[in-house]
């Protein structure tokens, strides 16, 4: 398997297998361009990624390597069971996305720029978990958002969506 070098915005190089790197569709198409331009010279390809800092790239590559490894395990050797493997992978993903809000932000931006669909999906789920089950004030604080309602508007929105709060109030009473 041939390797490629990914260069982060702060100039640090990461050597990874082409397969892992190709999980990023952005990198994949850059690689194709470089491949076409190199005229048969035998040299290792270097992909500069000026939009991704070293720390985030490291984290992204962790994901890519893990996911190509598990894909290889599926194709070769005895498979314990696909179901089991899938569950293991999900557990790994859950663990992986346990990061601070800041890190999550950089990760989602990088996943978007690098176009790694699986990672982007995972990040979005992580962000959704930040919203889920929290009070509006808490979410505002977390995302640095500002309440931009006027009083009557807020009241009408509250009324329409009251049903979502009814059950919790009852549960609280109990």
């Amino acid at each position, binding site marked *: 398997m041939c390797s490629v070098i990914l260069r982060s915005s702060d100039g640090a190089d990461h050597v990874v297998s082409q397969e892992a790197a190709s999980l990023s569709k952005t990198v994949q198409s850059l690689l194709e361009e470089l491949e076409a331009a190199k005229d048969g010279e035998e040299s290792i390809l270097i992909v500069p990624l000026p939009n991704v800092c070293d720390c985030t790239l490291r984290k992204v590559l962790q994901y890519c390597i893990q996911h190509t490894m598990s894909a290889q395990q599926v194709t070769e050797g005895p498979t314990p069971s696909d179901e089991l493997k899938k569950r293991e992978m999900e557990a790994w993903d859950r663990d992986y996305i346990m990061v601070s809000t800041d890190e*999550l932000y950089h990760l989602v931006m990088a996943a978007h720029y690098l176009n790694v669909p699986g990672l982007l999906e995972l990040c979005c789920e992580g962000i959704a978990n930040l919203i889920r089950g929290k009070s509006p004030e808490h979410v505002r604080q977390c995302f640095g958002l500002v309440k931009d309602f006027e009083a009557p508007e807020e009241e009408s*929105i509250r009324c329409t969506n009251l049903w979502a709060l009814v059950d919790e109030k009852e549960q609280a009473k109990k």
Partner: protein
Amino acid sequence: MLVSESSGPCWWDELPQECKLQVLEHLTARDTARAAGICREFAAHAHESRLATRTLKLPAGVSAAAVRGMVKAYSRAGKVRVHPSLTQMQALGSAIALGAEARVQGAPLEGLDLSNCRSLSENALLSFFTTIDTIRDLDASNCIEVSDACLRALAADLWQEEFDAEEDELAWEALQVQDLPQPRLVGKTRMHVEDAFAAARQAHSPLATTVSVGQRDLSGSQQQGRLRSLSVAGCTEITSAGVLNLLKACSHSLTSLNVSRTAVSTLQQSRWGVLQSLTANQCSNLTTVTFQLPASAPLRDLHLSGCTNLVKVVLTCAQLRSLNVSGNGSLTHLALNCAALESLSASQCPRLVGLVEESSFPALLNANFAFCKSLTDLDETLEACTGLLTLNVNGCIGLYRLALATQTEMLRLEAAGCKQMRRIICGSAALEVCMAQSCQLLQVLHLQGKSLRHLDVGGCSNLHELQMSRLERPVADLMAAARSGKDALFLNIDGCPRLSEDVVSRLKAAFKNPRPRIS
């Protein structure tokens, strides 16, 4: 799950729009409603997602009060789907009804989906139907407690709700008029029914008013009968008696009925009224289906697949478009007189030898007879189907020839694994795909082949005559044509030792694919 930092930066605004949407997709209805209080952006999203919801799924664990608010808030949802765990709730029906009534400029609530509510009692189903009086589409599939008695009660309810005794008789008379074979008079006879009701209402105004007091204002369409579609698929207790009972009460409104996986044993009911779609898959008690419908009967789709004991199907249905009788292990007699039939699927009927001779379905576009092992001849059956586009006879090991001379529009022919097949002749210049691999005895294959882009005759070890008008052109021309074509080409002639070298080289030239195949 995530540790949030209270002093986080304002980064939500910096996320690309598609990421934001992807995040919001992960939120449940309740999360979205709660998040509406965050800011205008979230409120707008909650508003839009509410308006875009056509089927409201009530989640597990909601209270009656929440259901009421939810049904009201999702004002465009014409259909409500009830979570199986909710059916134990006493006030669910009235909560839904009250919510729907309180909608501001909303859609009427016409659909109720109770599928898979296995513990739903018969009384509960009935009370749903009477409490939410706008319901026209009812899905009670896999509600195993629902039986004939329930359908009878439902029928009685519909009956009472719509007519008094005299109206009822008038209705039957009107229906009989409607049932007469009078093509293109549907609209007129429908008027007839309405007139009949109107006359009856006037004649018995005191009675009629008491009836309408019990209901809320019924719109014009509802006066013709309430139930529009019903599914009782998987309600194993239901038999023909219950279904017929119900049909009597709403044969002038019911357009779609699904009785799959029930104990229904007969469908010989000529009074299908306005029924457009009938599904009776996997009804193992069904042995014969005979429909002799008038030309005005609007039945368009009929599904009778997987009925293991179905032996005989006789259909005279002028408006039928699509018929599925696949997977019927006992089917031997298939007689069709369906002038508008476009799609016929009769795959995996191992006992079907052929269609009854008088059958006629000249408008057929798609035919599927795959794995009908006993099928011996299709040429005559399909002769009149001049518009045929696709034919699938894969695995028909009894077929020994296929002559499709009149079907000049055909696009796709599949006849793989026909062990007895000797000759295939297809006269369509439009044919794009021909698959006849593993027909060991195939000797002659004649194709027009002007548009052919996929030819598979792999393993046809006796094939020695392959004619294609295109191949007569010079090799250079063939290659040029292959290169200029836009479509990916496919050729498999492996394992055909009796083909002449000239033909092989010409075929290879004609199918030389400029683009690598995408695996």
